[in-house]
């Protein structure tokens, strides 16, 4: 059977689609892995919604710093040339069109570019939206990365989504474990398919009508480990004792 890409391999493919000099926000979850695979010969400036430009991942042996985390509350470091700023300025960057790309996860992407990625109708827990709705209309291009099909086989790229929307008419390109699909005013165009999968099979696994680009290519990545390569989120320590006031002058 055809080998599907794992999450790191999808992240690698997304990373290699981003041109030198871009400013890029990575959504919480799967997209955070993209930072691990940026080609060395490019300057990509990663923006983190909590007020960083120029973040990079920890290198082996670097200690996490609880005061330096990304949007997923995971420890990061800064590149030379990076900057800190507050949340109003950070979302001014996002909402004012200053980012070239945002990479987001998805529950469903519709062929009109609608994106649903924040809430499932049958969720029992509290809703949570974070910065997703800010990003979808803010970044110049929205790249989506997700598995092509959910665990029960349902397609994530659909003709129309009934899920609660994150934004309308906003998705530019979808990177899945089997294909790279561009969403254009002229419909969903398949740019790449993994080796061993036919266009018809891809279409069967997709809810929206696809067209194969004339210059389509095989979707190829290096083999990468399945394990997550991004440091884990910072965890709370044990409850601290009741705070003790300290003499302000002392």
């Amino acid at each position, binding site marked *: 059977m055809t080998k599907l890409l794992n999450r790191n391999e999808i992240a690698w493919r997304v990373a290699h689609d981003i041109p030198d000099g871009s400013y890029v926000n990575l959504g919480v979850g799967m997209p955070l892995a993209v930072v691990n695979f940026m080609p060395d010969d490019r300057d990509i400036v990663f923006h983190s919604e*909590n*007020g960083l430009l120029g973040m990079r991942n920890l290198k082996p042996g670097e200690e996490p710093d609880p005061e330096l985390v990304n949007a997923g509350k995971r420890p990061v470091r800064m590149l030379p040339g990076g900057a800190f700023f507050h949340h109003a300025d950070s979302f001014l960057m996002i909402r004012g069109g200053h980012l070239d790309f945002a990479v987001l996860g998805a529950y469903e992407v519709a062929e009109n570019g609608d994106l649903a990625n924040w809430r499932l109708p049958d969720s029992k827990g509290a809703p949570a939206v974070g910065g997703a709705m800010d990003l979808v209309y803010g970044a110049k291009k929205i790249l989506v990365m997700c598995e092509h099909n959910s665990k029960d086989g349902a397609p994530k790229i659909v003709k129309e989504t009934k899920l609660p929307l994150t934004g309308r008419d906003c998705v530019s390109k979808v990177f899945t474990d089997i294909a790279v699909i561009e969403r254009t005013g002229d419909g969903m165009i398949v740019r790449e398919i993994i080796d061993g999968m036919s266009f018809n099979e891809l279409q069967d696994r997709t809810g929206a009508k696809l067209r194969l680009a004339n210059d389509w290519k095989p979707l190829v990545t290096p083999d990468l480990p399945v394990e997550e390569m991004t440091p884990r989120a910072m965890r709370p320590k044990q409850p601290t004792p009741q*705070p003790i006031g300290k003499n302000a002058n002392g």
Partner: protein
Amino acid sequence: MIDKRRQNADEAVAGIKDGSIVLIGGFGMTGEPRELCSALAARKVRGLTIVTNNAGSGEFGIGLLMKQGCVDKIVCSFPRVPGSVIFEELYESGKLELEIVPQGTIAERVRAGAAGIAAFYTRTSWGTPLAEGKEARTFDGKDYVMERAIRGDVALVKAYKGDRWGNLVYSKSMRNFNPVMAMGAELTIAQVSEIVELGDLDPENIVTPGIFVDRVVQLEALYA
């Protein structure tokens, strides 16, 4: 003589009334003014509306405020973080009202309140369930949602260093919502790791000028 220093967390949160709108800085645990929240919880205020990004983690800080029954409503973008058990328990048992707001819209609504702006038009949330019931309007062919300002009665923030005039600087990503919340309330209370002499902070590098800050208290940095 301007001297905004307070001796301890309890003194710093004195006088906060039941029913206040309390803006709280931080992003997850980073930059959360945990000790101020805990001191406020210890005073057993009631009926607070808190405006913050996440809904606390563990049984301290924002979590403790909720656990002690101080909070009626939370306005936030992402209540669920690792350890947000108190929030989940209260929310699922219907004891806590939740208003979900996109993260940038929280920041912008608080900034608007700080800037004398009553309302503004943003693209964010247009066409989504979070825009339901909100006024929509088209400018230059694009659709926008009208959002109202949020103004706090109180802001609790955390910074790295402060001085007796209330000037604040931050450290790395603990900045996050703190300078925004600091501008947004009638009474702004800052906990810092160090209070320095007036003039020791470089005027070029002050992030929150003291005009926004009413009280500063030096507390142990318990997080790191």
